């Protein structure tokens, strides 16, 4: 790449005054993103500076009042705490378990293929369906889980009714839903590690654990970054699962940021306030992703 051939350099020179067709290639996506994502988020930022109600005849400008109110809003801090706990637990659980299962199912036999299919299956179900099914599975009256626990002589825990158990239960279901996808992505990464690297490590006398840490893990770094990043971003946007399983209760113990935003915006119609919540969340996600990418890049630099 360091040596450009003359023709491409000439092309580079002409680019100053001739239209670059690259813009044609990005145009459709750029237009769609501008109209249906960028403009709306800017608009929502504008709303967050107002006491805004949908269709309201006057939406007075209030400056940063919504953000100041947010700072003193204990329900917001609770939602932020719930969201962060959920995201952290689900990301760690999903990537850790996904890695463990992937290394167990690495060799392709009919049996491991069957198990892979099983683990991956929840990927095709929507979060809402997953939420509905699990809500019924955990139902104290008609659910299978408490039915079996009862049969074993245990009393049924209040999975979704207890303020201390509800969030861990939602987290477990979140991991249950996503572990298969992580597993498949990591498995794909593992299968691309050249076999001779392992042979070389074996000749050096490295046992499987050493081979895992010295060969597999470094090779998996991009896949791990990708799965962690995706898990973090989707975790911070938690909504469907909570909406279907608990509605945010009991006593806000599972109320995520987006759930709270939804309540404020679409139940109480305070669009200005909801937009302020949205912007804070947007900034949080941006910051967390940037940190993750930076950490990954620094490690790569080693």
């Amino acid at each position, binding site marked *: 790449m360091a040596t450009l051939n003359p023709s491409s350099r000439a092309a580079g020179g002409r680019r100053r005054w001739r239209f*670059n067709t690259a*813009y044609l*290639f*990005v145009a*459709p*996506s750029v237009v769609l*993103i501008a109209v*249906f*994502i960028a*403009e*709306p*988020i800017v608009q*929502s930022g504008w709303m967050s500076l107002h006491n805004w109600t949908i269709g309201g005849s006057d939406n007075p400008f209030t400056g940063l009042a919504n953000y100041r109110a947010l700072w003193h809003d204990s329900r917001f801090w609770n939602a932020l705490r719930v969201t962060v706990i959920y995201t952290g637990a689900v990301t760690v659980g999903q990537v850790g*378990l996904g890695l*463990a*299962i992937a290394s*167990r199912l690495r060799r392709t036999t009919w049996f491991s*293929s069957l*198990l892979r299919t*099983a*683990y991956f*299956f929840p990927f*095709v*179900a*929507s*979060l809402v*369906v997953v939420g*509905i*099914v699990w809500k019924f*599975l955990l*139902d104290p*009256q*008609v659910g*299978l889980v*408490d*039915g079996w626990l*009862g049969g074993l002589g245990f009393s049924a825990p209040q999975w979704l009714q207890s303020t201390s158990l509800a969030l861990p239960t939602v987290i477990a279901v979140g991991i249950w839903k996503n572990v298969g996808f992580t597993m*498949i992505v990591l498995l*794909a*990464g593992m*299968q*691309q590690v050249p076999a001779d690297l392992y042979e070389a490590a074996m000749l050096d006398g490295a*046992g*499987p*654990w050493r081979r*895992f840490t010295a060969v597999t893990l470094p090779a*998996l770094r*991009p*896949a791990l970054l990708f799965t962690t990043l995706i898990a973090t971003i989707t975790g911070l*946007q938690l*909504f*469907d699962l909570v909406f*279907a399983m608990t509605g945010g209760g009991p006593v806000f113990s599972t109320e995520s940021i*987006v759930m709270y*935003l939804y309540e404020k915006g679409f139940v109480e119609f305070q669009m200005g306030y909801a*937009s302020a919540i*949205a912007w804070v*969340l*947007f900034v949080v996600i941006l910051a967390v*992703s940037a940190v993750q990418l930076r950490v990954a890049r620094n490690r790569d630099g080693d």
Partner: protein
Amino acid sequence: MATSETLMHHGAAVDGHRRGHTPADKTTGPRNLARVAGRIGAALSWLVVVIGALAIVLPFVWMVGVAFRTNGDLYADPSRLWPQQWTLHGIRAVLDQLPFVRLLINTFVFAGGTTLLLLLFDSMTAFALARLRFRGRNVLFLLILATLMVPFQVTLVPVFLTIFHLGWLNSYQGLIIPRATSALGIFLLRQFFQQLPRELDEAARIDGAGNFTIYWRIILPNAKPVLATLFIIQFAALWNDFLWPLVISSQTQMQTLPAALTLFSSQSGVDHAALMAGAAISLAPLAIAFLLLQRYFVQGVATTGIK
């Protein structure tokens, strides 16, 4: 945890094997022990993995069971996985109350149409980001990545207003066009395109090929597996989308099957058979397609470049 321990035990066993045994080796006993422990550990870890897989599948089996169970059967013994008294009442309730064929067609048009358009737009953008040079390329890529981080609920109202002003409510274009690009797709395709050898383009350029020819004749044909994978990921996501079709189309005639069924399920009250029948039916088409295609899918992910 379990896996790493078993790997370690297993490692010890391999070590012992390689060094071989001599009668004078004092550690023979412990080494044998280690080997046995390794075997047990491996068996245990397999057991855990198998139990895990059962825990993943059981809820779906139970769901299908409840869809065919009478309420009386369910109340009598919730710990039974499978019905004793069968009923088609749940399925019938779903089919009676929803224009099933129409919803199915809508879902295919929405999920299929959007995904195809999305693959086209995303691959074009990814091609430019990965293989072409233009001013603002890096900024554009970062901006596209940033859109991944916007929760959908944030933009819902402004997007609705835009679609209204375009006159696209209750229409296929209103459903499809706003969703026809995705940051995740652009990201994955860009990764993949960057890995393709530069010589491909260079050779074609020397033959006088323009950017479009390179994109259409060289890059895309090489990207078939990753495009197939992306198709499945996006198709599944759009198929399962709940809020979007509900907001854009106010009439049942323009809704998608999973959205309509989820609504139906959420309102079935104590009619558990109808509720689970709704959930099962909404899942069935994707589940069948997945089970038929899953082998290709795993291979496809392997080629996306997220290795």
